[in-house]
C-alpha cells in the first residue's frame, strides 16, 4: 500500500518551453499567469549563503571573498563528513618551573565516521578550540591572482570597446557579457542608459597597466624514480580520485598529505516566473527556519489525484481503478475529467483506454478545523455510488475504468482534469460593482497515471 502513495505514479504536464511531466509535489503554480511551472521554466536566484553544520549566515560579499567556504567548520578529507574538535589533556611543562608538569588542553580534529584525525597527517594539536587551524597555502596563488587581475582588466577593456561600438549603432538591448556577478542579470530595456553610465566612470579612472610574464615551456622533465613500476603499492596510502579532486590545488596522491578543507556553504534560492517576473518561492533569511516568505507551490492550488487501489489489470479487459482527489483550497471546487481526444499531441505515453466519470465531481473546501471536530457533519452532496466511492472532508474517492490495450509492459493512462480556480491575488483592476472579489477561471491539466504492469 505504501508504494501506491508514491507521487511519481501521477504526473502532471507542464506546458513551458519544454513539455515536462512531473509529480504535482515538485511543481509551482504562478497565480498571476494561472499556469503550472516546473523547476526548468523558472529562474533561480541565490538568496543567502549559510554553513550546513554551524548554520551561520554569511552575506554574499563575504562568501565570495572566502570562496564560499565556512570559516569555522572543516570537512574530513577522507570521507567528507564534518569534523568535530576533540580535546585531550596533555602534560605540559609550566612556563615558570620546567620540572613540574601541568595538564593542558590540546585540541585536535577528528571525524566521527571514518575515525580520521588531524594527527594522521601530522598536524600538531592546537591550544585553542577554534580558529587555530589553517589550510595549507597553494604555492601558485600569487601567479594565479596576477593572471586573474590581468584578464579582468582585459575583459573590462574589451567590454568597453564593444559597448562603444554598439552605442554607435544604437541598438536597444545590451547583453551583459563578462559579468563578474554570480547572479544572472536579466535583459533590461534600460540598458543603454546604464552602459553610458559605466563608460563615463571608467574614462575618469586612472587605469593601471598590468603585465604578466608568459609561461615558460620546459624541455627537461623530472624523470620518474627507477622503481616506479616495481615498487609494491601501499593501498591504504593511495588516495581515491574523489578525495584527490576535492582538493584541486594539490591533488595529493598520498593519504598522508590530505589536509582538511573548510566546509562548503550551501545557499537558499528563490524562484521567479520567467514570464511575469513574480516570485514563486522565497525562503526565510534565517538558516534555521524552513518556512517560506512566499510559497506558491502547486499542491496548495491544484487538486491532487492519487492512486488508491489497482485491481488486477488484464489485456483488453475493463477494470476499475480507485483514485482520490484532494481539494487544497478552502472553497468548493468543481472538477470534471475528460478523456484525451484522438490525436492529442500531449497524449504520447498512454497504453490503455480510460473511461472517466462524465459527471462533474464536487469537492468540499478544506476546513482546517474539521480534523478536530469529531462529528462528521453530512455535507449534503448527492453522490452517485457508481462514480464516487467515498467522501471525506475535502477528499473523494472515485472510480475510473481502464482497458489495457497492450499485452505487455506497464499500463499508463492519461486524461484531462478541468477545475475552477479562484484567484485570490489582489486584482489589478479594482472591481467596480463590489461583487464577489474573485471570479473563477477554468484550468485544464493533463494528468498521466502509471498503473504498473499487467497481472500475469
Amino acid at each position, binding site marked *: 500500500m505504501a508504494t501506491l502513495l508514491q507521487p511519481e505514479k501521477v504526473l502532471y504536464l507542464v506546458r513551458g518551453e519544454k513539455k515536462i511531466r512531473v509529480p504535482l509535489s515538485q511543481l509551482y503554480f504562478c497565480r498571476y499567469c494561472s499556469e503550472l511551472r516546473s523547476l526548468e521554466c523558472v529562474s533561480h536566484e541565490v538568496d543567502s549563503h549559510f554553513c550546513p553544520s554551524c548554520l551561520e549566515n554569511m552575506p554574499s560579499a563575504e562568501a565570495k571573498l572566502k570562496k564560499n567556504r565556512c570559516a569555522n567548520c572543516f570537512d574530513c578529507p*577522507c*570521507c567528507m563528513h564534518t569534523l568535530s574538535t576533540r580535546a585531550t589533556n596533555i602534560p605540559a611543562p609550566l612556563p615558570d618551573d620546567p620540572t613540574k608538569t601541568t595538564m593542558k588542553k590540546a585540541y585536535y580534529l577528528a571525524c566521527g*565516521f*571514518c*575515525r*580520521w584525525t588531524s*594527527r*594522521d597527517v601530522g598536524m600538531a594539536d592546537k591550544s585553542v578550540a577554534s580558529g587555530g587551524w589553517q589550510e595549507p597555502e597553494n604555492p601558485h596563488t600569487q601567479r594565479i591572482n596576477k593572471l586573474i587581475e590581468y584578464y579582468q582588466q582585459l575583459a573590462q577593456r574589451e567590454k568597453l570597446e564593444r559597448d562603444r561600438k554598439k552605442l554607435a549603432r544604437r541598438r536597444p538591448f545590451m547583453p551583459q557579457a563578462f559579468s563578474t556577478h554570480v547572479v544572472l542579470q536579466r535583459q533590461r530595456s534600460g540598458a543603454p542608459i546604464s552602459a553610458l553610465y559605466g563608460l563615463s566612470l571608467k574614462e575618469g579612472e586612472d587605469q593601471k597597466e598590468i603585465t604578466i610574464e608568459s609561461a615558460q615551456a620546459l624541455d627537461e622533465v623530472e624523470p620518474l624514480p627507477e622503481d616506479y613500476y616495481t615498487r609494491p603499492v601501499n593501498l*591504504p596510502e593511495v588516495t581515491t580520485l574523489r578525495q584527490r579532486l576535492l582538493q584541486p590545488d594539490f591533488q595529493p596522491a598520498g*593519504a598522508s598529505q590530505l589536509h582538511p578543507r573548510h566546509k562548503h556553504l550551501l545557499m537558499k534560492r528563490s524562484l521567479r516566473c520567467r514570464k511575469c517576473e513574480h516570485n514563486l518561492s522565497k525562503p526565510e533569511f534565517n538558516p534555521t527556519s524552513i518556512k517560506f516568505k512566499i510559497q506558491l507551490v502547486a499542491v496548495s492550488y491544484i487538486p491532487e489525484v492519487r492512486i488508491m487501489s489497482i485491481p488486477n489489470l488484464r489485456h483488453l479487459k475493463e477494470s476499475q481503478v480507485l483514485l482520490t482527489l484532494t481539494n487544497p483550497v478552502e472553497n468548493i471546487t468543481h472538477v470534471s475529467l475528460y478523456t484525451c481526444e484522438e490525436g492529442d499531441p500531449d497524449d504520447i505515453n498512454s497504453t490503455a483506454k480510460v473511461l472517466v466519470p462524465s459527471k462533474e465531481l464536487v469537492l468540499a473546501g478544506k476546513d482546517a478545523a474539521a480534523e478536530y471536530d469529531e462529528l462528521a457533519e453530512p455535507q449534503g452532496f448527492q453522490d452517485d455510488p457508481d462514480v464516487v466511492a467515498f467522501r471525506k472532508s475535502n477528499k473523494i474517492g472515485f472510480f475510473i475504468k481502464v482497458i489495457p490495450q497492450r499485452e505487455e509492459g506497464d499500463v499508463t493512462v492519461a486524461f484531462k482534469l478541468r477545475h475552477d480556480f479562484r484567484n485570490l491575488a489582489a486584482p489589478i483592476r479594482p472591481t467596480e460593482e463590489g461583487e464577489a472579489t474573485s471570479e473563477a477561471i477554468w484550468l485544464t491539466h493533463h494528468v498521466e497515471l502509471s498503473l504498473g504492469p499487467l497481472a500475469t
Partner: protein
Amino acid sequence: LSEETESGVVKIAAGAVVCVESDIRGDVTIGARTVVHPKARIIAEAGPIVIGEGNLIEEQALIINSYPENILPDAEDVEPKTMSIGINNVFEVGCVSQALKIGDNNVIESKAEVGRNVILSSGCIVGACCQVNTCEVIQENTVIYGSECLRRVQTERPQPQTLQLDFLMKILPNYHHLKKTVKGNSTPARS
C-alpha cells in the same frame, strides 16, 4: 560426555560486572573488569569462548561460537574450537561477532557483523552496519567504514574505554542483579 561440555560452566572472574539479564550459554570464561550489559548474548555452541579483561559488551550484542554452516551439529568429527577475545575490546549495541580470534583494543560498532573466518588483530574498528565476512586477517589499526565497507589505516589505536568501564562498574550494580563471580565472592574469616 558431549552433553557435559555443552551445558558448560560459566566462569566469571572477580571484578567483572555481568548482569543477570544477559544470556550466557555454554563454556564461557569472562575476565576481570569486563562489563556485560543486560540482553547481551554470549553463546558457546561449538566450542568454548574465552573473553579477556576490560571488555565492554553492550546490549543486544551477540558473541557466538557456532558451527560452520555446512556442518551438522551432530557430526562427531568436529573439533570444538575456542573463540578467544583479547582485552579492551568494545562490542557496541546490536553487533554480531563470530570471529574466532579477536585481539586487543578493537571496536565493533553498532549492528556490525563479523564473520567466523575473520581474525581481528589489534586496534581495528569495524564501523556501524558494516559486514565483514571475508576470510582474512585484518591488519592492525584498520578502520572499516561506510556503506561499501571502505577501509583505511589510522595511525593510532582507539583508546581503551576506561572511563566508561569505571562508570558502568559503579552504576550497573545499583540497577541490576549481577551474576555470581567465581573467586573472592565469600571469603571465610581467617583466623
